[in-house]
């Protein structure tokens, strides 16, 4: 077997050193009734690299890859162009095959990356501090809700109807077991509920959670809502699922959000059918000891050189056990690295340009698609993603578009099944990878399907 270096001669010599007659004898401590007396029946035996690759090539062909089609899907996962050097660098074995940096003297590479990542995320979100990443945006969102409850000692959270329905579902699931009270509403296309949330926030409210841009792509100023939260002693949690947007629009931190979390997949990570992604988590400095997850901090070594370590671990499970701020153990190290490299390649100038290209292409696409008879724009103010109102139910349209080899968007029927008021909605994301030909292909296919 190609991954196993021991030869039979090695094994015999080692068994002699140990004083055991066979490898099986080393399992003598396992009760006989628990030991299998042969290989598990019905399972295949080992295969060559070539055979395994062939198997996967066959399966991969049964999926429609974004790169091979006009592609307009978003709703929490976006296709952006990832520079070739990102994937090269994250595959360096010193990054790829390293462990959590618990021995900082030989993990400064990972640690400095995390310190740079934390700084990038904090600046992007307009916050004082950020952590070393979470599993993904949806779990980061729940961790923020949980953190707000610890800080305010209140247990009632208001979720905006514009929050990604999977994020809502995660929060509702977790709250069921923690006793937090989660209030959420089904959205409509008539406009956001932020003014309503500002009116409802009260002395029992731990936090208000809004998404920016929201699930339909709509962007809106959150300053009034932030003031209302502050007046009520509640925290404002902003969720950003498309960080590229922040190259064009004000950061939530600038507008007064207390905790800003997000999905970092857009930069460096890729679609990957939903995971692994990278959760971003930033907040005000005064909340740092209530943060979940790993934190990297700057310090010096014994000879006075600057260095980095994991710090404030007294919040974490391996020290605090049942009193930890979260049970989280890993971060999304390699995805955070990919995010950070992509952000370094872009820099502020590149990020702003990327955002401008996205916004411009999205506006052009919206203009073209709303020329189609019966198709209207439901989100007047958007960044790179907008919602169209179709004259018919959108979900079958998306499937029909796929049959015409166009991946045309996410239907609201997929996200909000059974809600009649939303069933004609189609969320269309337009990033820099979308060409004018792609937009024309979508428009033509949509005209054909609606005809």
């Amino acid at each position: 077997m190609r991954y196993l270096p021991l030869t039979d001669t090695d094994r015999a010599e080692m068994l002699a050193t140990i004083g055991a007659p066979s490898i099986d004898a080393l399992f003598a401590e396992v009760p006989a009734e628990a030991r299998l007396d042969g290989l598990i029946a019905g399972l295949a035996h080992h295969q060559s690299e070539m055979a395994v690759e062939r198997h996967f090539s066959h399966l991969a062909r049964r999926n429609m890859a974004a790169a091979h089609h006009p592609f307009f899907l978003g709703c929490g996962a976006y296709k952006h162009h990832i520079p070739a050097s990102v994937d090269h660098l994250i595959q360096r074995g010193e990054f790829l095959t390293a462990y959590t940096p618990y021995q900082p003297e030989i993990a400064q590479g990972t640690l400095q990356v995390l310190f740079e990542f934390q700084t990038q995320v904090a600046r992007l979100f307009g916050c004082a501090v950020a952590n070393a990443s979470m599993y993904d945006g949806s779990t980061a969102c729940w961790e923020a809700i949980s953190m707000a409850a610890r800080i305010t000692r209140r247990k009632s959270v208001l979720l905006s109807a514009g929050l990604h329905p999977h994020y809502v579902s995660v929060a509702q699931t977790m709250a069921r077991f923690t006793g937090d009270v989660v209030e959420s509403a089904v959205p409509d296309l008539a406009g956001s509920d932020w003014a309503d949330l500002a009116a409802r926030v009260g002395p029992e409210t731990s936090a208000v959670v809004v998404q920016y841009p929201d699930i339909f792509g709509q962007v809106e100023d959150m300053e009034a809502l932030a003031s209302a939260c502050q007046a009520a002693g509640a925290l404002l949690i902003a969720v950003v699922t498309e960080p590229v947007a922040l190259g064009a629009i004000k950061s939530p931190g600038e507008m007064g959000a207390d905790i800003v979390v997000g999905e970092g997949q857009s930069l460096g990570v890729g679609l990957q059918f939903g995971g692994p992604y990278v959760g971003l988590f930033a907040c005000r400095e005064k909340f740092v000891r209530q943060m979940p997850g790993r934190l990297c901090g700057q310090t010096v070594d014994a000879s006075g050189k600057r260095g980095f370590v994991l710090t404030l671990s007294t919040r974490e499970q391996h020290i605090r056990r049942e009193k930890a701020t979260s049970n989280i153990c890993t971060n999304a190290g390699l995805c955070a690295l990919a995010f950070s490299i992509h952000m370094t390649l872009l820099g502020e100038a590149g990020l702003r340009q990327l955002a401008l290209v996205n916004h411009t292409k999205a506006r052009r696409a919206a203009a073209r698609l709303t020329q189609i008879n019966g198709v209207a724009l439901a989100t007047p103010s958007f960044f790179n993603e907008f919602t169209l109102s179709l004259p018919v139910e959108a979900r079958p349209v998306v499937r029909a578009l796929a049959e015409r080899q166009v991946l045309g968007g996410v239907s609201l029927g997929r996200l909000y099944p059974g809600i009649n008021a939303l069933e004609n909605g189609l969320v269309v994301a337009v990033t820099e990878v979308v060409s004018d030909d792609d937009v024309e292909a979508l428009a033509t296919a949509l005209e054909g399907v609606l005809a």
Partner: protein
Amino acid sequence: MNINNSGWKPELAANDSNGDAGVATFTGNRALMLDEPLIFEIGSNATTGVDFAACDARHDLGALARTAPINLPGLSEPETVRHYTRLSRQNYGIDLGVFPLGSCTMKHNPRLNEKIARMKGFGDVHPLAPIPTIQGALAVIHELAEWLKALTGMPAIAMSPKAGAHGELCGILCIRAALEARGETARTVMLVPESAHGTNPATAAFAGFSIESIPATAQGRVDVAALEARLGPDVAGVMITNPNTCGLFERDLKRIADNVHAAGGYVYCDGANFNAIVGRVRPGDLGIDAMHINLHKTFSTPHGGGGPGAGPVVLSEALAPFAPLPVVETQGDDYVLIEEENAAESHPQAFGRMAAFQGQMGMFTRALAYILSHGADGLCQVSGDAVLNANYVLRSLEDTLDAPFAHSGPCMHEALFTDVGFAEGFSTLDVAKGLIDEGFHPMTVYFPLVVHGAMLVEPTETESKAGLDQFIGALRSVAERAKAGYPTLKSAPHFAPRARLDETQAARKPVLVHPLISAAGKRITSP
């Protein structure tokens, strides 16, 4: 550009204790060992390493348009490649050498897996694409699920948890949901052995259980009598790691499981150490109700400097109805995704959703490629060689290092030693730092907590005998220095990119981000 931004003064080298003959360099670098500034010290907001087609359009964002600077420095592509390449060289990885970190299963990460995960048909597929367009992706999830069920002897599985601790949470929430469905809300106590990973009590506490610790015996296993004495109508279940964190098989697990079930509770098994028994023992045969599988341990997906992981959870018949959404199933020749909208009929008791989308697909492809490469026969050899390597280390070093459980028989996949016999003032930490100078990643130290001065060595099956012999020689030498009280060991490592770091300072006044300095030299603080 200042090439020495770290604050380290070259002239200090003449007096340092690093044993490098007092030779100072202008830069502070040492040939291939290059210090690297922060991007915030070398980049600028105006620099970018990405080219865009000309776009002279304007934003249409009104008052929301971003006007204030973000202060994200950029680098050109060559500078970017060099920055991260230099940083990478300050890291130790499996690719470089023996990485015997107990409880972490640092085995070789096959590059075929990386290639497969990056196939366009997997890496470039959207999680919300129409189901008929993602049949291959769902097929991978289904095929991996079938393998994991067969290897563990369990009837059901939840694939979506994103890491080991997330998998633990999934299993414990299944238990909570099952108890609620039975109307047994008085069962609020989770029993956790004191040798458990810290995630176990943290997870159970998060799920609303109170934790009671179960002691270990002098032989390094769960004290069965103490555990059974605690069972009762208030106990929800027990979390047991098998093989345990002392590197030993919990021989009485079947009996424990039977008794816990008889008392109305459930058995959660922490599967972190599944690598020791894969292909030889099915945890399902021992009566457990749930076990997470760290794909980044047993099934070789890369640790990536701390994630991403993946933690699918296998479940017993009793817990299967409560598994979270989404679930991949077959309908005729097609694969379907059971989500909130279509769960009512087939999965009415599902406890909810743990994360957006369908789980760690990029880890599923890698893990399945690893499993198919080995097959049932290869996986059996994996656990055999892992246990062989650990016992070889144990028996090669028990004359030098105290091995508290060595007398009771073979270990499983990891060998446990202690600091007994070290000179006054010398600890396992000193041995760890000494091993760094010898070119090895240290073993796990100070864990498990039940053994004072623990050193947990997990070589894994992907180490050669020659590599192990070298490691054994190095550990023997360092241990002898610790016993003899060599002062240079206290200041190790001497040859790493950094000497020992001041963790107290880091925690006392945390510096978690690089400060922004205004043109006037003033620190700009965010809210």
